[in-house]
């Protein structure tokens, strides 16, 4: 076998005491299979170049090979930590393309499942970030809560990770009263846990000092690099698709809970530092809890069982872009139909993809250990980059 070909954007030979090191692809803190080629002099890096594609599964190509409805399980694999919102993005794009109606109850179930999944996704993000920085204890705390959410979602749709719950035209299963009570009990249990988590780690002095002022991403830089979701809001941009371009039933829910988009305030150091990104996700837990409560209340007013209007002989022509607020931010799904049963072209633009494009620039002058903090604070999930 011939020698591996790998081109770098910076092909110059290392100068002075500079070393070129390989971090990953199998590295515990790279959040999946990602590789960084790090140029470093001692502990200070001059650059960390991401080498992605190890988890590339050609999901966009698969979309061209199966029908609109049959592609739904594959969307779970776009982001396996928060699969519901990827389901939602695909369903929304196809419904927009075909001008398909969706029953209100299905919209509520989408909101409830999305928000529960956001809670469990942030459990991974926050727990893993703390662990990457050497604080092992918060990780099992967060995973314990995630386990509760997994149990709830399993009861709702039969799966714990890749849900395949949303459908083109609705959702797969209705909730039961017993399940509704379980979710409410979980929320009652979870709210004090957020406060406990804050005491344990968010405002822990060692942790705050480790992250304050680290890897600051300014407002303009965040927008120009296309950061989305919590990363964007941590940099001080008050933009959340759920509030600003409301979809599903968020427009009915958010005013009822006095929604105010949380934004980074630089409480520990500067606006847009790694601590802001951590704190912001904790805040999102709080808001998700309120959204689920309100949605579980409002769903009572919708007729039971009306959860799916499945399209028949669905062969749309045209194109549509749909955006949903995933756990890793604004996920855009673009779908083109040519009058056949399959999508002619499908595209997912995800939060991690844009965030990863920023890493090389942000890594200049960082310590090697801070690279771990940077990618953890951006909440990067490898399959979302590679798809």
């Amino acid at each position, binding site marked *: *076998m*011939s020698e591996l*070909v*790998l*081109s770098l*954007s910076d092909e110059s030979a290392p100068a002075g005491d500079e070393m070129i090191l390989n971090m990953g692809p199998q590295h515990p803190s790279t959040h999946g299979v990602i590789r960084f080629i790090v140029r470093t002099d001692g502990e200070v890096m001059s650059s960390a170049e991401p080498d*992605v*594609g190890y988890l*590339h599964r*050609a999901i*966009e*190509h698969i979309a061209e090979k199966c029908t609109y409805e049959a592609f739904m399980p594959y969307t779970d694999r776009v982001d396996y930590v928060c699969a519901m919102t990827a389901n939602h993005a695909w369903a929304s794009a196809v419904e*927009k*393309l*075909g*001008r398909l109606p969706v029953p209100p109850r299905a919209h509520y179930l989408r909101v409830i499942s999305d928000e529960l999944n956001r809670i469990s996704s942030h459990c991974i993000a926050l727990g893993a970030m703390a662990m990457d920085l050497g604080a092992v204890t918060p990780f099992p705390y967060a995973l314990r809560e995630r386990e509760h959410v997994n149990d709830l979602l399993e009861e709702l749709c039969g799966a714990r990770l890749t849900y395949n719950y949303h459908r083109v035209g609705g959702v797969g299963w209705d909730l039961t009263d017993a399940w509704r009570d379980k979710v409410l009990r979980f929320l009652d249990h979870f709210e004090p846990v957020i406060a406990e988590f804050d005491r344990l780690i968010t405002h822990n002095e060692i942790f705050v000092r480790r992250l304050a002022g680290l890897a600051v991403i300014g407002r303009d830089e965040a*927008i*120009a*690099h*296309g950061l989305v979701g919590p990363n964007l809001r941590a940099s001080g941009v*008050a*933009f*959340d698709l759920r*509030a*600003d*371009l*409301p979809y599903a039933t968020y*427009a009915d829910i*958010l*005013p009822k809970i006095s929604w*105010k*988009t949380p934004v980074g305030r630089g409480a520990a150091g500067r606006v847009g530092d790694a601590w802001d990104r951590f704190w912001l996700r904790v805040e999102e837990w709080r808001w998700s809890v309120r959204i689920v409560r309100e949605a579980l209340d409002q769903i009572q007013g919708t007729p039971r069982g009306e959860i799916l209007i499945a399209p*028949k002989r*669905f*062969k*749309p*022509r*045209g*194109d*549509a*872009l749909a*955006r949903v607020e995933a756990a890793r931010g*604004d996920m*855009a799904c*673009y779908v*083109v*139909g040519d*009058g056949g049963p399959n999508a*002619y*072209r499908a*595209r997912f*633009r995800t939060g991690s*993809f*844009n965030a*990863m*494009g*920023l890493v090389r*620039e942000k890594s200049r002058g960082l310590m090697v250990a801070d690279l771990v903090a940077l990618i953890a604070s951006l909440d990067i999930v490898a399959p979302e980059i*590679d*798809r």
Partner: protein
Amino acid sequence: MTERELNAGPATPLSPRAIFERLAASASDDGVLTFEDEAAGEGHAGARDACVRLAAAAAATLPGVMKRLRDDPALAFDFLQNLTAVDWIKRDVIELVYHLFSYAHRHTIALKVDLPRAVPRVASLAALWPSANWMEREQFDLLGVVFEGHPDLRRLLMPDDWAGHPMRKDYREAKAYRGMPTTRPSPLDLLQSFDRAHATGPAAVRETATGPAPPSDATKGGAGA
């Protein structure tokens, strides 16, 4: 309550048509830009988002148009939210679709431009929006669109020495990559060949391979009886 009251930002969203008119008014290149209205299909016929189309002959003016979209304060498209290349093999073009969004005004527009399929070349927008850097690399990798002036146009997802651009409609995967086969036999085919090889063997072998024989086999007094 509207979105405005929720987040109280300074937003005055324009409709796609108003965006187009504003853009066309500031342009010296008349007739190059056309507006394609939002179309709602009947039944499941499908629908189309409104978009601005840049004539294929004027693809070279793309950076100027994009710069106006970004810098005009009434438009202020500060977020390149998506870039897609679509291979329309029957029309022999590759269509680039840019989706822009403005955080200041909360409005959105799609801009499309056709490139010749044989030599799809267009100017890079990485200088306007840094987020274009990776998106252009991805479209180059998967569809072979060459973005001129891109600071670092290399493959992003596929290996550097991969042959071809996999999202092209006429792409055929090579049988092997670096000696590794790119296909593998279906497990079902393996099972069938195993079954054939042992068709005359003891019943136990067949049962482990394919599960219990169906009743019709047993009544025939074959190997399963």
